[in-house]
């Protein structure tokens, strides 16, 4: 299958199964909040609490180097939480839905897409406390915020691509989830979340910028915290990297598609 066909099928499947995606995203939300009295507030409280803890610990370390560390941190935590959540929930999707896949010929990545969309809802819910923190700390809300949705494109592609690769791997290797934990932890510290690019030694920057997540997080922080536009070249580089990673994920999925039935 050509790259165009892989991408075409992928996006057509999303359109074709839009009813199911809607239904399953709402299901996941309902399930998550059914038995908690705070309900949807959790989606807003979670990142808020995380931010508070990290701010308390790191703002003194960063003393003088970063102004309003809570917004600095929160703006980068948004895309990271989405990425982390999507990748982690993609891993098990094929095994969890084995019974369905055993009798219904549907595109198998639809379950991964569903968990990615679910995490998007969480991301938008977390936007509310970010705005509150900005208002509360008197941080200016820059007009560049309107570019934010554009940054979600490479974010979606990259998270999806990595999630699909790991979902395929998990069908064959049961220790994929453990390896992913290590991978995600390493990535967390190699992305500009707790710090900024200029706080890293230059020799390291050369390498870490190759990770599209680095540029995506940095770009989102520029839009939300600094109020500056990300460099177009960097944006395109990260977009290309993300498209490539999704392509790899789709290729691996397509390649392994016929073999899943032997393992699940």
């Amino acid at each position, binding site marked *: 299958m050509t790259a165009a066909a892989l991408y075409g099928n992928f996006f057509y499947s999303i359109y074709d199964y839009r009813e199911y995606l809607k239904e*399953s995203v709402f299901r996941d939300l309902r399930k998550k909040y*059914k038995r908690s009295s705070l309900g949807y507030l959790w989606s807003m409280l979670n990142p808020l609490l995380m931010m508070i803890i990290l701010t308390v610990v790191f703002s003194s370390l960063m003393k003088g180097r970063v102004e309003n560390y809570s917004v600095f941190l929160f703006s980068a935590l948004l895309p990271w939480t989405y990425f982390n959540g999507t990748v982690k929930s993609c891993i098990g999707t094929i095994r969890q839905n084995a019974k369905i896949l055993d009798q219904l010929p*549907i595109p198998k990545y639809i379950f991964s897409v569903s968990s990615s969309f679910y995490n998007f809802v969480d991301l938008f819910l977390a936007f509310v406390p970010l705005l509150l923190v900005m208002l509360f700390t008197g941080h200016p809300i820059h007009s560049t915020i309107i570019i934010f949705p554009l940054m979600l494109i490479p974010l979606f592609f990259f998270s999806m691509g990595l999630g699909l690769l790991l979902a395929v791997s998990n069908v064959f290797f049961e220790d994929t989830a453990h390896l992913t934990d290590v991978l995600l932890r390493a990535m967390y510290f190699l992305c500009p979340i707790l710090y900024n690019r200029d706080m890293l030694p230059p020799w390291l920057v050369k390498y870490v910028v190759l990770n599209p997540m680095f540029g995506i997080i940095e770009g989102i922080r520029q839009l939300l915290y600094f109020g500056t536009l990300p460099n177009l070249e960097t944006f395109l580089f990260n977009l290309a990297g993300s498209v490539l990673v999704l392509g790899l994920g789709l290729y691996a999925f397509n390649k392994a598609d016929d073999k899943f*039935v032997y393992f699940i």
Partner: protein
Amino acid sequence: MSASPANLVENQNTQAVGFDQAAEPGVANAVEISNVTVAYRSYKERPTTLKETVIGAIKHRKFRYYETFNALSNVTFNIPKGQVFGIIGSNGAGKSTLLKVIAGVLPPTRGTVKVNGSVDSLIQLGAGFDAELNAIENIYLSGALHKKPRAEIKRRIPEILEFAELEDFATTPIKYYSSGMFARLGFAVAADRNPDVLLVDEVLGVGDERFRKKCEKVFESFLASGNTIVIVSHSLGNLSSMADQIGLLSRGEFTYIGDPATAIERYRAQDYKTRLTQNNS
């Protein structure tokens, strides 16, 4: 697999299959299967982690952990529209593989499968259900998975609940259901989809006598509207009264297709012979 007496019998019968399946002109086929071979992989002591795989590759230079065998070899047959087609055979004969091939979830290694119209499985009841959700939410979810528009699902809900006799438990999460209730909901949801070809795998055993009668009625009205049923079963008595034709599968090949009584007779004879050879060896 060495040549056993049972094998010889099979070979004689393969020719008969051709005669029974002579194309009847003017009769539309619901399912057309020609020369289908499925090379199945059976894994032995496969490492299940990446760690073990790497160690195996480095230490023992071992990369391949499977043997292939033909779960189906060169199977050709047609199922005319409106028929009940039964499939029998001992364990491992390829019955479930055949259903998966018709359902479209297992692409054949060689050969072609053609299903005229929609196909749906009653293989594992309630496969798409989520235990945390209630009946109504599950009906929506399962309907959406089959690409049914929400408005249409909504219209069908009262009827589905009535058939499953679960009106009083519609808002109870199905994890609190008894296995009978679960199966009833699964059957009701699947039956409501009304596909052109229905694949059934041993599900008639669900529920009590009364519900089973109800299921049989569904099958009858289903057939009356010209739809087709492919059914795998071990309860030969049930099958012989229901099926128009029965195919006898043995080690991935049809050794007989045709009259139900004859198929069952041959199955019993073959079963007996296999047991004899097993006892002798």
